């Protein structure tokens, strides 16, 4: 079983990256009830920030702040212009954000073309340990994601803003009556959601294919994770990522990728049927 370290690393990598990818939608859907169909497109914007920086010849790490800034601006505008007016109308937000997704894809297509982009690896090579060779960039990414989630968890538990968000989620009217600026909190949460998506895109860009239609697959995976893990908590997100990612990787290793995808679909169906709020449901 000398392959076990490699399988274990693959599992951890899948869970970590799934968590980062889904975080944005977990916040926006979980805390605000907004099914953001353009979630994948914010990831795409993050990836194209890396494309832009590389094309212009700037220092590669500048792509990260660029992605955050662009996604913050676009997220702010989207929340202010579209989403805020549709908070209690879930189907309308679904339609509106789907239209937004089409618009974003076409804009990127016009600006950058349809061709595939290759982001240069800033940390090439592999690290040898436990008898396997694992790509260095992936290791660094996994560590960064773990630290980020730990910090986020602690912040949410301990901070005043975290408390206010919990208040707003459990009873928005009472929270507003108590003096919490729910509109500002909601906008902040939405922007955080889009920025997380952008961060996922820019960090994953050297590892995945980059083209205007890349976002659609991420939306699908995010949906599976949220169905299983439940909305509105970081534990739910991590659990969902662990279950979906773990199932996919294990079944794929044992009986092929088709089996892995089938298992993910079956689990999602079972959860939708028996436990529609997921493992860690809100409230």
């Amino acid at each position: 079983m000398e392959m076990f370290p490699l399988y274990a690393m693959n599992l951890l990598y899948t869970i970590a990256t799934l968590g980062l990818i889904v975080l944005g939608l977990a916040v926006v859907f979980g805390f605000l009830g907004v099914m953001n169909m353009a979630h994948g497109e914010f990831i795409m914007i993050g990836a194209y920030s890396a494309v832009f920086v590389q094309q212009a010849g700037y220092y590669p790490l500048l792509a990260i702040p660029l992605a955050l800034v662009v996604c913050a601006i676009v997220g702010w505008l989207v929340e202010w212009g579209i989403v805020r007016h549709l908070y209690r109308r879930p189907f309308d937000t679904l339609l509106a954000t789907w239209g937004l997704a089409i618009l974003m894809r076409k804009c990127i297509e016009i600006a950058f073309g349809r061709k595939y982009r290759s982001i240069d690896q800033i940390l090439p090579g592999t690290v040898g340990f436990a008898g396997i060779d694992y790509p260095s960039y992936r290791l660094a990414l996994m560590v960064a994601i773990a630290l980020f989630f730990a910090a986020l968890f602690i912040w949410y538990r301990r901070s005043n803003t975290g408390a206010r968000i919990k208040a707003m989620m459990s009873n928005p009217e009472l929270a507003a009556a108590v003096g919490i600026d729910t509109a500002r909190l909601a906008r902040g949460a939405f922007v955080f959601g889009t920025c997380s998506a952008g961060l996922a895109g820019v960090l994953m860009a050297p590892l995945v294919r980059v083209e205007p239609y890349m976002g659609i697959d991420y939306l699908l995976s995010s949906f599976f994770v949220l169905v299983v893990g439940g909305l509105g908590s970081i534990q739910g997100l991590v659990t969902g990522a662990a279950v979906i990612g773990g199932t996919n990787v294990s079944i794929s290793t044992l009986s092929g990728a088709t089996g892995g995808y089938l298992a993910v679909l079956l689990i999602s169906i079972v959860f939708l049927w028996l436990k529609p709020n997921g493992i860690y449901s809100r409230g």
Partner: protein
Amino acid sequence: MERRQFIQSSFTAALIAALGGVRWARAAETIKVGILIPLSGPAGLFGASSKNCALMAIDEVNAAGGILGRQIEPLFADVGGPPADAVQAAQKLWKAEGAEAFIGMHDSAVRGALVGVFRGQVPYVYTAVYEGGECAKGTYVLGETPTQQLQPVIPWLAEQKKVGKWYLIGNDYNWPRNTNAAAKDYIKASGGSVVGEEYLPFTVDNFDSNLAQIKKSGADAVLVTLVGGASVGFNRAFASFGLADNALRLGTLIEENTLMGIGAANSKDLYASGGYFRNIDTPEAKAFAEAYTKRFGKDAAVLNMMGESCYEGVKFLKALAEKAGSLKVADTEAAAEGTTYEGPRGKAVMHGRHVARNIYLAAANGAEFEVVKTFENVSPGSNCG
């Protein structure tokens, strides 16, 4: 003759002369050719280069007198979506706009649907790389078959690179399966063995478990029949795990766009086998590439074997029409065997609805291809009995 009779007969004569003149003018009109290319959907990436190459060929043919003395008028339609939409688009060109022949560069699902619609009533030239076996009446296939792409290439690679343990990985549909079925024969004939075979659904974008399998199997050669984004993702991950140091990769649908997505750093020992690459070193191919850049600019859609096949399609259609004397299917069917034409790929000769042509084996050199071996006049195998 009485005056009224005179007026009537001269009026009639004038009318007949006018009508005859109109018919004569119509005979010198254009010949409408439906050009079916993917402008949207997963293969939409190839739409721009396909259209450009088709336009180049049409202008060249028109400048030399057109087809059978009539200028070609292209009618483009988008067939990148589901087959039902493609059928509608093609029918519109055929019935409503009077297309007399079709040139198609699209996937096999669309081809199957179109063959069912045309039913051998209109000549239909299919130009894309595909799985072989298309024998419908009125259909003429220029696309490379798995036999062509692999029969000379696998033994050459096995001998030159000393590889014998092949891992086959592709997407799960008929083209990869047919390709692998053919590959197994050639691998065995060259003294090698197949150490793994996997088919992935199109939704997969994480290949870590597949790469672990490849490493475990000890393969020294990987035959990649993944398409599009999956090919890019797989090849990037393959190299990032350092597997390119131990195994070479051979792809039968890795063209310039895919290679750009894979990136120079991830393309070590990556080979592609096909009928056309932008960097083919023959005078015809270089002249073609220069003319393309001159006309469409440096930032135009990159030349690749999918787009360039549309150029071949137009040239073939002219050769076929000239040989048959018309574009009626009865005539083209009688004349098709032995039709030859020349283009950037070299010379092609039609046998059994498919063409024998040169096959190029190219190695990735950074983010560009470099042809390392040319196999001349490779037979497409026996597809139609």
